[in-house]
């Protein structure tokens, strides 16, 4: 049994379990009836990722045949999964594999890293993990040749941004952040992660970090957000070292604001619990109708593998 088969088997088991949990005998039907707004799966990173997307209705709901997909993990630091400052490689590779299975014509894993691109791709383990799915998926782009100016029509503080051309060309964007605290933005999750697709970020800090994050998400919203909370850096993020907890969970949603809001509400931050509205960019995104932060009114399906 190779890795792929194993994961499929695990996902299959997850489906059955989910079906049983929801009291419906036919698992396929259960999902077609009503996809939850948020799916939370506890388990090994790769399997939990797959199961969480399946709970939402499967990758086929998001990625159609021939789609060009960009996956945006956090691979900004030259540190691996233990630091909890970068996305677990198996979360990223599971997403890439599912996209290809759904018939994506191209899958790219992109980030404009804070540190040396080569070291980041290597040390996070993301390039190696994705190489098992298909070659040439992972790129840390920082050369301005890869970026293009994009107007932000209704921006509050930003009028434009230099965004990766491949992102602007993509049919679907999948956010795959690691869950962590951020001393400026409160948390660094799906929405904050979109900054990694931009060339010049200094202006976003000058014009207002939270406002800029929301403006950016109006032009490049994720169609699917999969938050890697297998480890959570609850303090001293985004780089650490800080307190790392290991909930072993993956949180997925078609609504990136909801995914972020649920993540905020689920874990401690610096030793205390917070409401999603206490994170300014989440609150602003909610108020602007980009997504919903009222997780108490959303349907959540949880599963433990």
């Amino acid at each position, binding site marked *: 049994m190779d890795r792929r088969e194993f994961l499929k088997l695990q996902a299959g088991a997850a489906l059955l379990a989910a079906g049983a949990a929801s009291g419906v005998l036919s698992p396929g039907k259960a999902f077609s009836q009503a996809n939850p707004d948020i799916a939370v799966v506890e388990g090994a990173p790769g399997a939990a990722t797959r199961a969480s997307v399946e709970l939402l209705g499967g990758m086929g709901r998001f990625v159609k045949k021939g789609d060009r997909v960009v996956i945006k993990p956090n691979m900004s630091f030259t540190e691996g999964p233990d630091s909890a400052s970068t996305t677990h490689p198996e979360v990223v590779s599971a997403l890439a594999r599912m996209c290809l299975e759904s018939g994506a014509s191209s899958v790219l894993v992109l980030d404009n890293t804070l*540190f040396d691109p080569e070291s980041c791709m290597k040390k996070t383990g993301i390039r190696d993990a994705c190489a098992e799915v298909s070659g040439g998926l992972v790129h840390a782009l920082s050369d301005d040749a890869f970026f293009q100016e994009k107007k932000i029509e209704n921006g509050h503080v930003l009028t434009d941004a230099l965004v990766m051309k491949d992102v602007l060309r993509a049919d679907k964007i999948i956010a795959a952040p690691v869950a962590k605290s951020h001393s*400026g933005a*409160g948390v660094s999750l799906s929405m904050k992660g979109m900054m990694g697709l931009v060339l010049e970020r200094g202006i976003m*800090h*000058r014009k207002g*970090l939270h406002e800029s994050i929301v403006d950016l998400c109006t032009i490049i919203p994720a169609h699917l957000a999969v938050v890697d909370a297998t480890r959570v850096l609850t303090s001293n993020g*985004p*780089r*650490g070292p800080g307190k790392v907890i290991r909930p072993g969970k993956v949180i997925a949603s078609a609504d990136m604001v909801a995914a972020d809001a649920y993540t905020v509400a689920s874990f401690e931050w610096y030793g205390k619990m917070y409401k999603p509205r206490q994170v300014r960019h989440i609150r602003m995104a909610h108020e602007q109708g980009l997504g919903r932060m009222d997780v108490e009114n959303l349907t959540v399906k949880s599963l433990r593998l």
Partner: protein
Amino acid sequence: MRAFRRVAQTAFFILFAALLAAGTVLHLAPESQGAFLRLDPSLTAIAALGSRALTVLGLPAALVLLSALVLGRAFCGHVCPMGATEDFLDRAASRSRKGRSLRPGSVRYGILIFLVVAAVFGGLNLSYGISPLSLATRLYAMVLFPALAFLFRLALDLFRPLAQDLGFQSIAFAQVREPFFTTQFFLWALFAALFAAARLTPRFFCRFFCPAGAMLSLLSRKPILGRRVSQDCTRCGKCARSCPMSAIPVAEPGETVFSECILCGTCESLCPAGAVSFGVRAGRGGRVCSTDFSRRGVLAAGLMGAVSAAGLAGASTLLAAPAARPFLLRPPGAMPEDEFLARCARCGQCAAVCPTNTLQPVWTAAGWGGVFSPAVTPDLAFCDPKCTRCGASCPTGAIRPLSPQERIWARIGTAGVDRKRCVAWAGRQACMACDEVCPYDAVRFSRPEGYRFAVPQVAEKSCSGCGACQHACPVRGPAAIRVSSKDALRLSEGSFVEAGRRRGYDLRLVAEKQEDTPAGAVPPEELAPGFDP
């Protein structure tokens, strides 16, 4: 001889270029390139004299010097990459024939004496302006390498759309590091002038300026191996007229000025009578160029050296005392400033192998005695605490070679926040871009009374001055968090780790700190940074 020399010269040039390319493009073994530079007798000797330190680093140059007793100036003709460059340009350039009669004169001895006096009496290393391997390294690493990278990038940008369509991901997403050096336009001009002079006479630099050649000449008066002329010589003088070094007296083509001869073999291949050969010479000595030395010339050059050294040293200290240069950051492991400048050959090797391109040659930022010496420039990039390349590549030990652990503790300065300009302090906005990137976790946050968002503070004992914060700071011209040379560790010997610990520093990288972090909770009455009430 001529064929052998072509092969040898080409092979050594390829070795030089390959080591340089390995160090700069492929980021491999910077040590080996430094070793090649150490072959330069003038670069090594002047650094040793200036710093009054004779180390094992001088061994390769000493061997080259001693080789002159046996082989004469074979180094110049067969090994030196600067000579190879000149020969190549000579072949490429057309030249009026009469230029060949230009006499080398004693200029280069004057330069050598000047350098020695400045080093001995002024503790100054001025060899950087003129040492052949320092010049050659700068020519290839700081002028041609950036130019090639620029062209390569243009080509890449051109082919990218096609590669993308064809699915060649590695080309479609290839990124070229385009190095930039602050003094490269000056170097363009310098080399343009130097090579324009190649139109006047072959090996213009080699014959008129090269102090390494002058040193070798001194030991090349009666080499064991050298040019031999048999009885078959018809005294036609063809060899004398063709000699690129004017090493054959026209009146007596049977003689050889060994202090000039670089064993190129031109005479041997041209001789119609087949009278010239190279090999072990039978007893009789050669000739020295009569104008090589005059007492007056030696005294004049020495005096000039002494006056210049005194002038430079005086001007250097008067114009900008060390205290007046708070933002001059030397590479990690750089010796104490005086010793650093005395040793530094300004070859640019450290800057060329620097993976982040933060190392830049300075103009007068380090005083007039420090022109072209390297400095860390965080505005361009940070100095990676995991990188030991500059020290490894340094041919003179001006930057000490460090182990990875020593490097982490080789503090180059201290970051400080300008609260009047900081986005968080003055603008009262969420930012903390500096905290995000700090490899030492030395940027701490707090939320003083009345501030809605966290503001940064530097934990000075944990800061190494790498400049990641300064580079990331969104405030420009200048950044609101800036590294000064405060508390830089500049040791000529001993351990940086021990010295740092003695001073109470705690210079550990984030990864090493992971285990011993406290629970990471803020006091109950405070909010986590970045959160709203």
